[in-house]
């Protein structure tokens, strides 16, 4: 998949998109499975995606589609009974290219990348910060883990960072405990911690889902501004298609552990290729449509992870499914353009013709 793309028209024009065309992260056929009592949950089952330098890739899907597990696999934050069983996660960072999936999850090489080169922001800012220590303690600790600075230097850098993420009185916030701050402020602190070592890649897992819409808007603005300024890449995980439209350069749509469609944000919203993407977009209420709109729905629900349907994982809910084909055969991933792919037989005319016979 080629990685260059026209910058979105509404973005800051002087934004430096890193070195366009460079791939920063390349996930290839990743499989992360959970070995539970009832069987094997294939939470991530053959996910491939690439993150270009300086760009934002949104991973979107409903709960249970494997988007968070994909993100956590990158930083090797998968706990038992889960483990990466197959695939490669190539990281083209500061040093030699490495396969993160092959590194020791507790080892020094990974530790140097985690937090310093790849940072992560989670959904629940309150739960991610320790209630026992002040914001200043936690922020300077994060800074000093990766940078050789004195206490005073780390403190000053912390102050600077808090100002940078839009916290009005940094000095007071440094001395506060997390529970004294609002959800939006906590998330800003988390972002400050994540950015403290100037990461090349920021993974944000539903960072605004627990926040009010007004706060969410400001956090999204902040992330876009910081990205324009630092040229970092972002993997932004969300289930909110509005947020995707607001922030993504490229979109990865996931369903039941697989990528069903991938493409530039405009194509995904205005020319979706996979029936699931189309159904998902149609089921979102849109402001301006007026009241009493009847929403189109996706029939049924996401299957239980232990009862994964054979063939295309979506065929049980797909209105365009072809009996005898979709319920039998794994759909092929089909390239539909330099940057667009969809995993659906409908785009393989030969397969469809054969099935009709």
């Amino acid at each position, binding site marked *: 998949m080629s990685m260059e793309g026209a910058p979105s028209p509404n973005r800051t024009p002087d934004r430096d998109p890193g070195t366009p065309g460079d791939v920063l992260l390349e996930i290839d056929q990743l499989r992360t499975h959970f070995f539970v009592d009832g069987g094997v949950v294939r939470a991530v089952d053959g996910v491939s995606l690439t993150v270009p330098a300086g760009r934002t890739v949104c991973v979107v899907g409903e709960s249970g589609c494997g988007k968070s597990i994909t993100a956590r696999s990158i930083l090797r934050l998968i706990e038992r009974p889960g483990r990466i069983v197959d695939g490669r996660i190539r990281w083209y960072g500061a040093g030699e290219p490495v396969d993160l999936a092959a590194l020791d999850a507790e080892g020094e090489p990974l530790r140097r990348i985690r937090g310093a080169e790849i940072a992560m922001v989670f959904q629940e800012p309150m739960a991610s910060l320790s209630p026992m220590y002040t914001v200043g303690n936690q922020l300077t600790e994060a800074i000093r883990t990766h940078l050789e600075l004195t206490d005073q230097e780390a403190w000053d850098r912390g102050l600077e960072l808090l100002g940078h993420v839009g916290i009005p009185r940094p000095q007071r916030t440094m001395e506060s405990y997390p529970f004294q701050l609002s959800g939006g402020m906590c998330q800003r602190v988390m972002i400050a911690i994540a950015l403290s070592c100037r990461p090349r890649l920021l993974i944000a897992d539903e960072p605004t889902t627990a926040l009010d819409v*007004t706060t969410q808007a400001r956090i999204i603005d902040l992330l876009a501004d910081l990205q324009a300024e630092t040229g970092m890449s972002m993997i932004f995980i969300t289930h909110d298609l*509005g947020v995707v439209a607001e922030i993504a350069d490229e979109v990865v749509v996931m369903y039941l552990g697989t990528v069903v469609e991938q493409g530039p944000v*405009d194509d995904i919203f205005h020319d979706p290729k996979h029936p699931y993407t189309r159904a998902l977009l149609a*089921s979102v209420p849109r*402001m*301006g449509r007026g009241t*009493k709109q009847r929403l189109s729905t996706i029939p049924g*629900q*996401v299957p239980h992870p232990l009862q994964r349907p054979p063939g295309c994982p979506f065929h049980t809910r797909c209105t365009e499914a072809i009996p005898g084909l979709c319920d039998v055969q794994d759909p092929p991933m089909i390239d539909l353009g330099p940057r667009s792919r969809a995993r659906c037989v409908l785009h393989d005319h030969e397969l469809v013709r054969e099935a009709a016979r």
Partner: protein
Amino acid sequence: MSTPDERIDLVDAGPEPRAEAAARSTPPGAENILSVENLAMRYPIRGHGLFARTTGHVHAVNGVDLTVRKGEVLGLVGESGCGKTTLGRCIVRSEQPTEGSLRYRGPDGTVVDLARLNARELRPYQNQVRVVFQDPFSSLNPRMTILQIVGDPLRAGGIARGSELEERVAIMLKRVGLSPGHMRRYPHAFSGGERQRVNIARALITQPRLVIADEAVSALDVSVRAQVLNLLRDLQEEFDLTYLFISHDMSVVESICDRVAVMYLGRIVELADTGDLYARPQHPYTEALLSAVPRPDPRLRGQGRRHRLPDNFPDPADPPAGCFFHTRCAYAQEDCGSHQPELRTVIEDHRAACHYTEQLSLTGVDIEPDQAPPAPSRADGPPRPSQLKES
């Protein structure tokens, strides 16, 4: 218990202007099912120690006037902490409001003040006013079967038991799209969307007239959310229900509500028909809320940036003087910090609590052409505070 002749429009509760305002908000022909008048809910803040003294109060709901018309879906929106859930809890009397009245008009036309009833007197009304909660995971008792959960209000109210109860549960489960054959299963066997259907079945089993839906679809996935919203709408028609739909999601609210009330720091700041409120907001807070909603269309990217609100949500225990919103309002004038604006009619059937709304031209949402409501003429609002000059 109130007497049958205590009609909503004749009630002389509260200061005169309030009664007037309440009467004005009812167009001829529309009947109010609930009239919330000057409702307040204050929670004490206690100090530390054995003899903890009350050191202040949080005004979760701070003088709300609101009428719910029979058969409508009234949306109640606002940021977390604005008091919308507390208002809902007061209406179903999970809380005893500190002040004000909740005048409910029963099926026979009698009006009672739910705020003044004791637990025993309240019982018949608890079947008529029901609530659907947000979280489909924590709101169902994991040790009870679906039959027990959905049938509980019938059993507790002495309405039905035994095979009759079971039959009514089966009918209701079927109606909300669940298989009656699953009624002996426990909640853990159901997905989030199915549990929310159980919640809805539990709320509707007593044949209520008014249903408070508190973030009823917020925890659901997109595709399931659409199913549940459509279900709520079908049930409304079928059972002639009135909904108070509490939500923070402006696009969901637009899709289902007839009218919308916007709440800020325990007060209603704007109230209008949905289309009118979205197309022509009359309060700066509503404008900011609408512009903050991320739109699922990349072409609209960055559009809302002009109206971003600062994060400094005021402390509900110590609200700012004057207009509560002035500390975050982009249009605030000097005197906004000293005079509290009344919720008043700005345009026909459109009320807002802002001194300067006539001078502002606030941005709403572009309504798709065939959906646009006809532009009403600006009514002659009550005189503004004399010290205000045309800017």
